[in-house]
């Protein structure tokens, strides 16, 4: 009887105390209420923009989706005169240029990150890291300008003939050297995504516990063996995430690629010297003339495809990196 009564009294007291607290909170609410409403309103605006982008692209590209269906993905003509549209060559160009960049930048990025975290004397570490990181903030128009006026002409006169002479037996290095084309775009993209892959690889490698390294060093391992058997296995997934994040950047890179890829569909071949299109360069080349109707809708469906592809790539990359908490290149990505 006694304890139960005591319990009841104390619970009533607690309740009244809580109630008093509630009152006080409510009394000072007007300011907080307005504050929260404002914050939520802005958050909702941002969410609405995200949804709006998807909706605007989808609804406006509906005419071509209905008219061509899946043929839009394979059709090779983007032809306003005959009113038939497709992005086959652009899809091919987008994937092949990004694939080149991915294959080249992945080992370069891992190597650079490994050097900066494991081998580099600490005096040089910060300046070198700053230089590599800074590559990421160079605007893509500057890379495009250099690519179009300097790199592509060099490729045409020196680089591609050299490749042809020494590796010409491969189908990739046959045909006329144009300078601009798939190879030029792929190489420029390599330079553009390298800092992203490096930055994330560095962050991921830094999360490898010191004990893992020390254990191997204690066994008499060389620095390289520490990287090979402790650092890389531990950070494999995160590095892959960073690489895919870079791939996403390459898939969507617009202005630099538009300047160096030639924007001409060539007859299908394996040659990397051929000129081509990417989804993004189609948008830049076509939007100016787009008249309402199928033409406009085709440009927007190209954008929708690009959005879908980069979205899938990015979600995949974030899932791989998410394991490690919110790593994401900090200033870079």
């Amino acid at each position, binding site marked *: 009887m006694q304890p139960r009564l005591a319990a009841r009294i104390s619970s009533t007291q607690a309740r009244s105390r809580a109630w008093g607290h509630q009152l006080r909170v409510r009394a000072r609410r007007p300011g*907080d209420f307005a504050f929260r409403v404002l914050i939520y309103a802005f958050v909702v605006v941002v969410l609405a923009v995200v949804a709006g*982008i998807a909706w605007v692209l989808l609804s406006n590209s509906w005419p071509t989706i209905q008219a061509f269906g899946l043929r839009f993905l394979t059709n090779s003509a983007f032809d306003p005169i005959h009113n038939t549209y497709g992005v086959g060559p652009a899809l091919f160009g987008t994937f092949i240029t990004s694939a080149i960049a991915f294959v080249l930048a992945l080992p*370069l990025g891992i190597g650079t990150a490994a050097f*900066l975290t494991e*081998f580099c004397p600490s005096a040089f570490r910060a300046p070198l890291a700053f230089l590599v990181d800074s590559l990421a903030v160079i605007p893509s128009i500057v890379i495009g300008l250099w690519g179009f006026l300097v790199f592509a002409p060099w490729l045409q006169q020196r680089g591609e003939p050299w490749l042809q002479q020494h590796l010409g037996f491969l189908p990739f290095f046959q045909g006329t050297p144009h300078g601009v084309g798939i190879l030029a775009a792929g190489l420029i993209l390599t330079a553009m995504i390298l800092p992203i892959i490096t930055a994330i690889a560095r962050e991921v490698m830094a999360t490898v516990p010191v004990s893992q390294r020390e254990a191997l060093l204690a066994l008499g391992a060389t620095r*390289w063996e520490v990287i090979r058997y402790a650092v890389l296995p531990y950070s494999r997934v995160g590095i892959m995430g960073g690489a895919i994040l870079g791939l996403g950047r390459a898939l969507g890179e617009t202005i630099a690629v538009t300047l160096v890829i030639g924007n001409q569909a060539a007859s299908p071949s394996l040659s990397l010297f051929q000129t081509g299109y990417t989804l993004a360069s189609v*948008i830049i080349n076509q939007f100016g003339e787009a008249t309402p109707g199928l033409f406009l809708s085709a440009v927007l469906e190209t954008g929708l495809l690009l959005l879908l592809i*980069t979205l899938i790539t990015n979600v995949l990359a974030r899932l791989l990196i998410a394991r490690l908490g919110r790593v994401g290149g900090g200033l870079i990505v």
Partner: protein
Amino acid sequence: MRLAEQATPPASPRSNPFQEERNGLARRRRVTNQLAVVLTGAFTVLASLFLLYLIVYVAGKGLQFINLDFFTQRPKPPGETGGGWATALQGTAVLIGLAALIGVPLGMAVGIYLSEIGRGRFASLVRFLVDTLTGIPTVIFGLFAWVLIVVPSHSFSALSAGVALGIIMVPTVARATEEMLRLVPKELREASAALGATESRTVLRVVIPAARSGIVTGIMLALARVAGETAPLLLTAFGTSFFNTSLLRPIDAIPLRIFVFTLSPYAIEQQQAFAGALVLIAFVLLTSLAIRWATGGFRVRRR
């Protein structure tokens, strides 16, 4: 190879591969290590040299055009020598201002929400969407503003470009704000609450001021990045060689002028493109250098 086979299972202490004393293996391991150092070092040097080369090359070509005319004159008609980048400079300033006007409040609000208010599923969703926004190609935002504003109004405009750039800024600002606010010690918030401050007062008068320098850094970085955007501007601002007086008309910008001059058939204009590129690089690099120098990286100011 042999090492790899032996090393994977550290089966018994006796078969420890790293204590192999045989000469051949020890030498091979040493050589492999040196090879790795040289190779990865070469990669690193290659990447940093490319940046230095790019800066030196652009400066070498562009520096001769950086004079008083560059800052005060309109571009001359194609083929004529002389002229400046005043319209582009004005345009970029206007566009950065517009972008900040739209992007900073939205981004900061999302950052404040994620750090101070949001809990549970909805907050995770917002965080995920904002992170995803970072990965969307900027041309898509241009396309969005183009369909939404340019096509219906039948005119390219500074406003549509500002909207596109503002949206592009949101994730960077949001993320910087969130991360900086999270670094503010919990004790500061508790002390503020203990003094009777309301939630909004705590956030606005205590937490945000404590994280101010970090947030400003994030905003500066977002602005520097947005200043170099080209693709979304082509679809919205379009460019012009006149000074712009109306937000509803096309406007020039440094990246747009570089793009036009790059594709120009005249050698003199192609040369001038490097001058614009130099200004852009200088702006972006100096911003990021200044940020590093001033804050020593992303750091919270403690009070």
